[in-house]
């Protein structure tokens, strides 16, 4: 590539959110980095098996990138892979979760620094990569969703009624309203669209997940010790809250829901 006076080289760690074919030999990458947030860059020759950037220009790769500012798009000049997250590729459920997380990050505005968003994504992909079974994958996924919800500024109110702001006592019935953004008391539940009756266990878990720096190994074990039913409430509440604020625009959601349902039926994801 000819070096022009205008080209300002820069280096950053970044996760590859997407890698789409560009022309005959190249890929266009959507990257997510702490310093730049989401941005696009061209990986020249990455579609060719002999291309130096072929292995880097794959979704969910975490690498250190050297880039040059091109005329219209940034261009990857060098890349050093930190991890490919090798156990995600080849696993339908993990790939579906990683795709969903990528899509969340892809909704971020272009070029806005996002250290916290990057940290959440990095921890999630690492946990997903190392998840040994279905329950670990689910725990990581629900952790990511609750973290991303809070990161996007929609951390749900838990323990107080979002409408009347009254503290909900431990022995009281409670509901979750995704649009209202938190728990609802018996009196106020009627003011909201489709609130779900939930247990205090699942809501406590949501509160705790949002404040954990890493996903738990399982939601069934301590400290969460959630019943199957409470896990379902938690998973639905987080997902519905996330969807409300994203206007439901997740292309990968259908595939993720199918993959989760299949894995749930099998009791375990077949980890190949």
């Amino acid at each position, binding site marked *: 590539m000819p070096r022009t006076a205008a080209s300002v080289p820069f280096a950053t760690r970044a996760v590859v959110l997407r890698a789409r074919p560009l022309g005959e030999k190249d890929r266009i990458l959507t990257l997510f980095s702490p310093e730049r947030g989401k941005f696009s860059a061209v990986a020249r020759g990455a*579609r060719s*098996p002999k291309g130096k950037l072929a292995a880097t220009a794959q979704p969910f790769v975490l690498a250190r990138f050297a880039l040059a500012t091109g005329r219209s798009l940034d261009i990857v000049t060098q890349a050093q892979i930190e991890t490919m997250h090798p156990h995600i*590729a080849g696993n339908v459920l993990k790939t579906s979760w990683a795709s969903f997380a990528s899509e969340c990050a892809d909704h971020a505005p272009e070029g806005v620094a996002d250290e916290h968003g990057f940290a959440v994504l990095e921890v999630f992909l690492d946990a997903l990569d190392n998840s040994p079974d279905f329950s670990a994958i689910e725990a990581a996924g629900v952790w990511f969703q609750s973290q991303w919800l809070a990161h996007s500024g929609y951390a749900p109110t838990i323990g107080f009624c979002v409408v009347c702001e009254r503290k909900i006592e431990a022995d009281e019935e409670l509901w979750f309203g995704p649009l209202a953004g938190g728990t609802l008391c018996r009196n106020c539940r009627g003011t909201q669209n489709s609130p779900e009756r939930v247990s205090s266990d699942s809501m406590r878990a949501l509160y705790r997940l949002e404040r954990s720096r890493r996903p738990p190994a399982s939601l069934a074990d301590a400290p969460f010790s959630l019943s199957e039913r409470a896990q379902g409430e938690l998973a639905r509440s987080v997902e519905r809250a996330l969807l409300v604020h994203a206007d439901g625009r997740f292309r990968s959601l259908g595939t993720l829901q199918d993959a989760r349902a299949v894995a749930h039926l099998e009791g375990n994801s077949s980890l190949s």
Partner: protein
Amino acid sequence: MLYPRPLEALLYELEKLPGVGPKSAQRLAFALLRRDAQQNDDLAGAIRDVKAKIRPCENCGNYTDVEICDICASPKRENGLLCVVAEARDVLAIENSNEFFGRYHVLGGLFNPLEGVGPEQLKISEMIGRLGPEHVEEVILALSPTVEGETTGSLVARALEKHGVKVTQLARGLPFGGDLDYADQVTIAGALRGRRELG
């Protein structure tokens, strides 16, 4: 600089083609202008025909101009050996390697949630439907060694689990990240020869 409108329209259409930038579009357009009208009519006819007459084979999804493609119809092809590929263009890449004499099955894409391609969008049940009638004993997964290709591979392998066929995968002569149709013939031939059973 402004071109006369018909020339502008031609350049606009040419530049939409893969690998054709403004420079090559200009070269092609001026070459077309210099040729006789008959030659250009033949070219236009061929372009029209390809879209009107080429369709996916009803058995395997390969490109054909009849109901069942030549490969599916040929008695010379080995029964029992099925090579699963993502796109019809991959059939050509493997045919060029001169290493494979069974039949193909085109999935019609690769598992890619971000593009809305899940298991339902791929022709997996059609593949299962061919196992019995065609006495398939071995299914070779010839998919790109990419995240999408590997995940598609395990999806297909899982669907084949209960059917008692041997499932093999191209050898790792192909480096991770490259697309299958860009691998050269020698590499594909080597990868086919060295294929391994999926464990």
